[in-house]
């Protein structure tokens, strides 16, 4: 676990994504300079405000964005740059080498096909499994994610499943072909604590035995602290803070990270008002100059509003994007 990113599985440099808003044709700058890498057997957590571009960044890695989207930067994976790869080549990577778990399990499956059908697709496509072998693998996968009576469940349709079951099925589909990189967008939101614990253990096991590299997008700090090695905090499409999980929890440098950690209900007595971050995130179609968090930041100084802060590096690989990051 200590031989960190010797040969990262994926390395993302200066990723920018802009989307076209159909309503008025405005350009949404959803991702604005994201840098990270994930090594074999390592887990990166991505956290940040709703709408700050986490899912967009995750989708951009395998270029599953609307046609109008523009992607800039480099995505190094398996000796090539996915940012410039053709869709045909990407198709052979998707589901095989890079798998994804989508944010909302209730709508990730086609309502007209059985769970079994949809689980079989990647197995047929990438591994040429068929007949007995295919069925055995389907059952094995459902069992791995903790779904009982897999034989019956395979024949059922998505609307006959509970939210948590769907989420685990989506997970089973993602790990079906033993990918090298798994991008999990909120993989456990619909799971109860025991199911979540079992599921996270499964991911951890895959990561330890097969060297699976894992990117977990989540709002749940419990999940981050349980399985992540590194954390990336995003705000308005930027990486505002990055570092080992302990450092982020013990010494958050960016005011946004600090505010985020303070608003967890765990620490507050029942019924009392929970601390929140006042104000609204900036409109991604019209980002202000300077630091995007300035308007809501308790430590704001004049400079923040006009000049974009540079990354400040700390010991242990922690870095933050803030003019006042090294003040304590």
């Amino acid at each position, binding site marked *: 676990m200590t031989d960190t990113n010797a040969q990262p599985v994926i390395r993302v440099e200066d990723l920018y994504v802009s989307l076209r808003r159909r309503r008025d044709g405005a350009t949404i700058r959803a991702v604005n300079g994201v840098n990270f890498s994930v090594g074999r057997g390592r887990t990166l957590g991505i956290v940040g405000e709703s709408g700050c571009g986490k899912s967009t960044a995750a989708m951009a890695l395998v270029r*599953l964005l609307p046609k109008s989207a523009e992607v800039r930067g480099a995505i190094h994976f398996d000796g090539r740059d996915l940012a410039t790869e053709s869709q045909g080549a990407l198709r052979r990577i*998707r589901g095989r080498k890079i798998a994804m778990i*989508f944010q909302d399990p209730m*709508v990730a*499956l086609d309502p007209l096909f059985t769970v079994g059908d949809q689980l079989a697709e990647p197995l047929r*496509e990438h591994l040429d499994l068929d007949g007995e072998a295919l069925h055995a693998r389907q059952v094995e996968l459902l069992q791995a994610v903790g779904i009982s009576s897999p034989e019956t469940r395979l024949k059922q349709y998505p609307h006959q499943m509970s939210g948590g079951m769907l989420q685990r099925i989506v997970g089973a589909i993602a790990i079906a072909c033993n990918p090298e990189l798994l991008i999990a967008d909120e993989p456990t939101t619909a799971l109860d604590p025991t199911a979540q614990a079992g599921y996270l253990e499964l991911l951890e096991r895959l990561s330890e035995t097969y060297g699976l590299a894992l990117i977990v997008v989540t709002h749940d700090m419990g999940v981050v602290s349980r399985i992540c090695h590194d954390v990336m905090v995003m705000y308005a499409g930027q990486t505002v803070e990055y570092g080992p999980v302990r450092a982020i929890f013990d010494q958050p440098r960016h005011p946004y990270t600090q505010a985020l950690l303070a608003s967890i209900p765990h620490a507050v007595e029942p019924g009392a008002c929970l601390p929140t971050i006042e104000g609204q995130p900036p409109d991604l179609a019209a980002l202000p100059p300077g630091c995007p968090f300035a308007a809501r930041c308790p430590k704001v100084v004049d400079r923040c509003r006009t000049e974009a802060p540079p990354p400040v590096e700390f010991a242990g690989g922690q870095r933050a994007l803030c003019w006042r990051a090294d003040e304590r």
Partner: protein
Amino acid sequence: MGRYILKRLWRALITLIVISMLIFVIARVTGDPIAYLAPEDASEQELAQVRARLGLDKPIYVQYAFYVGDALRGDFGNSLRYNRPAFEMVLQRLPATIQLSLIAFIVSTILGIMMGVLAALRRDTWIDGALRLLAVLGQSAPSFWIGILAIMIFGVHLQWLPTSGRMGPEYLILPSLTLALFSMASVMRLTRSAMLETQTQEYVKFLRAKGVPESQIIFKHMLRNALVPVLAVLGIQLSHLVGGTVIIEIVFNWPGVGRLMVEALLNSDLPLIQAGVMLIAISVVLVNLLVDLSYGLVDPRIRIE
């Protein structure tokens, strides 16, 4: 599924009963057939005799009961005009109408879906534009005008196709295509928008994330999902088609029920009208039933209650 089928059957039956009542009542309140049948100088007494012979002097619900009883035996009375069994006359003409509307139905459904898929996949290109223009034309131009235009171009000018009568398969082409145009346009527009909507669905993105080939995503998943709303309106399309046959049959001189009905209407030939409308209604209800059942086959959420 069993319950779903039963429910549909029940609904079909109710529909037929309501239609039969409507046909009956409407026919009785619109005009007095006696005025056409009896000689113009007939006396009141003579008129009353004719009425009594035809049962037109009884209370209306009694007339209806007789009518239903007879209808169930296939007896709609004799045509007032031709004095032949009305049911038989309609039955004779029915194959021509069924042939015409069924072919138009199949053509409009298949072509409409194919064009809709194509337009959606080529969204905002010239192909999409051309297809949508065609759809607007198909939906807004009156069918008699299209029919006459088609006769002028393909029949009179180019002399490629026959334009009148029903002598062989080539006689079907122009009338069925003309008839199909309207509903083809609506099926196409609906398919196009349904396909565009499925394109934005998360599960389509997830299929891409699984590495499923694009062709399989389009034709296995997206098309089947897009068919759900399309199937829902096919029944209505069919009713439009059957209604449309009347005009088409006149324009192309097609010997079907529609033309017979127009004649019957002009003559206030009640039994003939009733037999014709009833038979058409039965066929429409039956096809609707088939469409409903196929709906259950496509969508498991309906099949499994």
